[in-house]
């Protein structure tokens, strides 16, 4: 194995980690903070990807084909807002009845995911749709002979970093974020202290969904955009969150890094199918020893 293979594997690992982290971040927020496991998270990601597609279609119509770069930039915040809005509605109509009932949460959000998938199929057709990558994301940096670092992967790395930093600042440096963490740590006490926990819940769910929308933008650069896009990522995202431990930003980051770096390694030494099997088995074994995941909130509670 040449040095460039090794280096490219490290880069692949980091790149995969960034994708996983971006997908897992929103899930971790909704799941970790609210105890609701959102099966429709993958479909919010799908919504984000379709936003890119629709916006590009509109831009092509009005500004010609040269505007792919601009439309992609605009679709980043737009997909956040569309997915967040959808998350907001879902929370208002459905999720808020399910707090404290995580199992029902699973089943109801699974029903949502069915509906959203079928809706995508009826609106956009069963086929995958195509999005032209912006010109400035084509090609890559030639780091050394035989090793090209694609711009789109570098872009996703940067985007993920930006999102993580943004979420960190929000959670730890703003009053709103402090309230969110307070609700996460002790809901009843926060409520006693005058925090409007329901408002925080709704907002948190919308935020997590919005992050899925951004992730949808990012994966549209790498993969397919179609009704089953969300399904391709959701289980990996679950594993990231569970491995990382819930309720901690650091946990999700660590979970994504471990999964992202190890997956290409196992894939390289075995096959793609077996690589994933090995990784999942290891994660399960690890959780036997440390059920709370890599990072977890220190707690004296038994339950």
């Amino acid at each position, binding site marked *: 194995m040449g040095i460039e293979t090794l280096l490219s594997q490290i880069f692949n690992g980091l790149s995969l980690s960034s994708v996983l982290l971006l997908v897992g971040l929103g899930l971790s927020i909704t799941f970790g903070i609210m105890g609701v*496991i959102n099966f429709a998270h993958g479909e919010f990601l799908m919504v984000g990807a379709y936003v890119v597609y629709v916006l590009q279609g509109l831009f092509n119509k009005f500004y010609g084909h040269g505007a792919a770069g601009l439309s992609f930039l605009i679709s980043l915040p737009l997909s956040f807002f569309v997915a967040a809005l959808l998350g907001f509605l879902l929370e208002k109509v459905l999720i808020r009845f399910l707090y404290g009932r995580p199992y029902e949460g699973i*089943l109801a959000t699974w029903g949502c995911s069915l509906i959203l998938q079928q809706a995508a199929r009826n609106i956009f057709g069963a086929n995958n749709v195509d999005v032209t990558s912006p010109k400035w994301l084509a090609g890559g940096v030639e780091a050394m002979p035989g090793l090209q670092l694609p711009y789109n992967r570098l872009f996703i790395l940067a985007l993920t970093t930006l999102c993580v930093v943004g979420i960190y600042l929000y959670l730890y440096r703003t009053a709103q974020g402090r309230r969110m963490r307070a609700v996460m740590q002790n809901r009843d006490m926060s409520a006693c202290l005058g925090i409007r926990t329901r408002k925080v819940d709704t907002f948190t769910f919308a935020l997590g969904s919005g992050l899925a929308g951004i992730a949808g933008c990012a994966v549209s650069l790498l993969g397919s955009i179609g009704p089953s896009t969300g399904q391709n990522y959701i*289980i990996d995202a679950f594993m990231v969150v569970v491995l990382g431990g819930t309720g901690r930003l650091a946990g999700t980051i660590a979970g994504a890094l471990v999964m992202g770096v190890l997956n290409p390694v196992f894939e390289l030494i075995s096959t793609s199918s077996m690589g994933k099997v090995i990784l999942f088995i290891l994660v399960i074994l690890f959780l036997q020893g440390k059920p709370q995941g890599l990072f977890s909130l220190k707690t004296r509670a038994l339950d």
Partner: protein
Amino acid sequence: MDTKPAKSAIFRFKWFALVMLLLALAPFFLSDFRLNLFGKFLTFAIVALGIDLIWGYAGILSLGHGVYFGLGAYCMGAYLKLQAEDLPDFMSWSGLTELPRFWKPFYHAWFALPMTLLIPMLFALLVGFPTFRARIKGVYFSILTQALALIFVTLFIGQQPYTGGTNGITNLQSIFGFSLAEPATMRGLYAVTVLMLGIAYLLCHWLTHTQLGKVLVAIRDGENRLRFLGYNPALFKVLIFAISAGLAGLAGALFVPQVGIISPSMMGILPSVEMAIWVAVGGRGTLKGAVIGAVLVNAAKSYFSENFPELWLYFLGVLFISFVLLFPQGIMGFWRKGRFKWMTSILRWRETRFARSSSPNGLPRKYH
């Protein structure tokens, strides 16, 4: 009720006897196609009983029960395949010229049939023991079982020479010398399924009415209190998980000859989640509910997808969501408590019943 056992036993089981009688009479008023379909639903009802044991009674939600169903089904499929061909067709086109050693015992019914129960149970023990000892529970356990389902699907698809890959095991000809193409065989299989469902139901009924059943409910409602009382919840959980897996395996074994195929798509995450939904729709913690839920959801699925092949997923999605919201205790819960109050309560939706500061069983929500 226990004071008058002789009378109450008859009283208690009159519904059971009536339903069994109706099921036994079904072949006389259903077409062969519908009977076959109904037989399939009844195998699903057996899975649902198993899931209800662990979820409804012990409060453990497994989202990977497709694995145990599949293991049982594959054991049966292997046996039936070897009845049809000496070397299964998928092996020869994958380049194998000889039957792998671990396939050979499945030639014999005395080995294959018990294995449809034992392999899922053993595997459940293997998974359950460390997991429950590590006190993994709640949604964490659910996600782990899901990952396990994904692992199994990937493995079974990848090992095409030994498992038949995505195709699975298909093109089965006969069972115990009876051709699977004969409607009479199908009726026989249906009768066996009804019988097995009856036995499974009685077994679960007995289990939940013994001390064990009380311990299970205690695990669901207050595991730590139980632990402080000197019980080891992990052992009970492993036991009930294995029984549940065995029921799923039994259902799988009954499924294969009736449907004529087993493939990894029956082991995956989607069917596993669906299995949990049957129980949720029927009503957790009631065995009748599990059976009713499995049959109703599948009947609805068949009905919708036959009549609206392009829209049926909407119906299914709406059905699940509305059930979770409107009948949180499932059909049985509605039947027991809510059937009179329901119409009024629908207009006066009180969220307090599920106030977010308390868990459904009235215990304080976790404090971090």
